[in-house]
């Protein structure tokens, strides 16, 4: 778990420092150098260059900024939606609970990716909304959160149910506190742990989803790089420059494994504390 956390911290720091690293190396991630296309790793460019001769290390780090941002933002948004649905469901009980949980079951069962594709393909201009937000990071965050809340919702509901009948909640009810106050001051602080774990586990899924959407051309739009769309450019050059395909995928893989291990580790720690 420490290893996973450390890896993530290092990766995030490197990606955040991408402009700094670029300046230090005297490189520019957008500098096109057509005479030096598809250079293999080593030499002037540590990880080689891409199909336009841009330094691949910088591209990779800048892509990481976007991918990690979308991963964190998307998981956070999904966490908020999931917490809301789960806590309301667990606290209210009855028909509302039954309805929300059936809804969750259905969303879990759906073939998410095909549906996400159609949501991502929607032309916001037809709705009369502005579409100009750079590479579309905010848009992808919202789209991913739309389907990513189910894990958190289930966990939030289960833990809410387990504290719903505790004496401190009953005492607050007896004192006449209204449901929003009870949820905010008595339930949420006591269900936060499991929800944070579930949200951490969601980050991995969100990073994967973003990369798939970007790979398929419906996510982050070039020239803004993300680990997903770097790979879609690399697909056609698989035979000439395999490093272009191997590196971003490896970055995604390491990130997702690390987030999953981190979530698992937190989960185990939480279980131990509850049993103690």
């Amino acid at each position: 778990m420490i290893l996973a956390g450390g890896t993530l911290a290092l990766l995030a720091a490197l990606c955040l420092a991408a402009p700094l690293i670029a300046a230090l190396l005297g490189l520019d991630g957008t500098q096109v150098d057509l005479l030096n296309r598809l250079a293999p790793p080593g030499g002037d460019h540590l990880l080689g260059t891409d199909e336009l001769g841009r330094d691949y290390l910088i591209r990779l780090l800048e892509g990481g900024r976007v991918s990690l941002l979308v991963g964190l933002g998307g998981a956070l948004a999904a966490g908020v939606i999931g917490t809301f649905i789960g806590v309301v469901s667990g606290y209210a009980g009855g028909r509302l609970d039954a309805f929300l949980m059936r809804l969750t079951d259905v969303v879990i069962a759906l073939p998410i990716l095909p549906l996400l594709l159609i949501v991502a393909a929607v032309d916001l201009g037809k709705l009369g909304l502005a579409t100009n937000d750079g590479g579309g990071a905010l848009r992808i965050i919202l789209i991913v959160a739309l389907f990513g809340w189910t894990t958190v919702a289930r966990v939030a509901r289960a833990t809410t149910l387990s504290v719903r009948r505790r004496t401190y909640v009953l005492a607050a009810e007896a004192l006449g506190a209204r449901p929003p106050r009870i949820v905010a001051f008595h339930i949420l602080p006591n269900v936060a742990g499991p929800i944070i774990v579930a949200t951490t586990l969601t980050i991995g899924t969100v990073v994967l989803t973003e990369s798939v959407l970007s790979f398929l051309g419906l996510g982050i739009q070039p020239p803004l790089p993300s680990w997903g769309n770097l790979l879609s450019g690399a697909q056609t050059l698989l035979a000439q420059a395999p490093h272009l395909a191997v590196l971003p995928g490896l970055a995604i893989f390491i990130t997702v494994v690390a987030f999953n291990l981190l979530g698992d580790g937190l989960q185990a720690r939480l279980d131990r504390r509850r049993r103690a």
Partner: protein
Amino acid sequence: MSAYLVRRSAEALVAFVIVSVLVFALVGLMPGDPLDLQLKGDPDITTADVERLKAIYGLDRPLWERYAAWARGALSGNLGFSRLYAQPVTAVLGDPILNTVVLLGASLVLGLAIALPLAVAAAARPGSPLDLGINLFAFAGFSVPSFWLALLMILFFAVDLGWLPSGGVHAIGDDSLASRARHLVLPALTLTVLSTGIYLRFARGALLEVIGEDFMRTARAKGLSHIGALVHHALPNALLPLVTIVALQLGTLLSGALVVEVVFAYRGMGKLIFDAILANDYNLAMAALLLATALTLICNVLADVAYGWLDPRIRYGT
């Protein structure tokens, strides 16, 4: 039981109708409607022509009216015309459905054939190096980006080693079973690696749950070996929850299949949906998406029913 079945089916049906309405609305919001292309291709077209064509296609009517018209047609078997393939949608769907079912079936069988023995091996000695190694493999399986794994497979088996074809359903002009099988290996293998981890983790968990039961002690007492008791007594019990998991995973499996099909240019439902969305083929996208949705919902209801049928201890409240 039958009351339960009816209620679950009704719920699935309601969910399906809601999804179909949403998808219909979303498909209409994709860039470019059927007229936009005609507009671009024909400089002489007048505004009056456009209005007339819109009226013919029904694009001037409100959304719910269009949906009602589409639903009426769909119920009578008319799913419209695919712009991309210039054929009725119903004629386009057949082959890809078959291809995807073959792909999913192959990877499901292969996945379970790998997951079950590994789960038994892992559950036999929890915490052992073997268990940790198997866990790590499961972990890697659902953390790896699907398209990257597919690309690596192509890079290694098709480009470097040249053993297997890198894409397609069968070689051009060679529609034999052997050619199809060769083209199936890499996509099926990729999908298997992606899905096996989930089965493995659930099977291991389910095995560990029943391992402390009385019947396990009895089996050991009558002289069965540890592994023997696991295989003959724990595994059948652990398989029950796995039925639900496999069905619940179908949606995820279809998502994985979409990516795998796109990368391997394997003409299945996933690639069909992807191509239809990119080409703004409204009718085809709509039909293919809803078919995939219906398939997963039906399988979920079936799994629920099968669960009760396989495990007589379960009683459904009506």
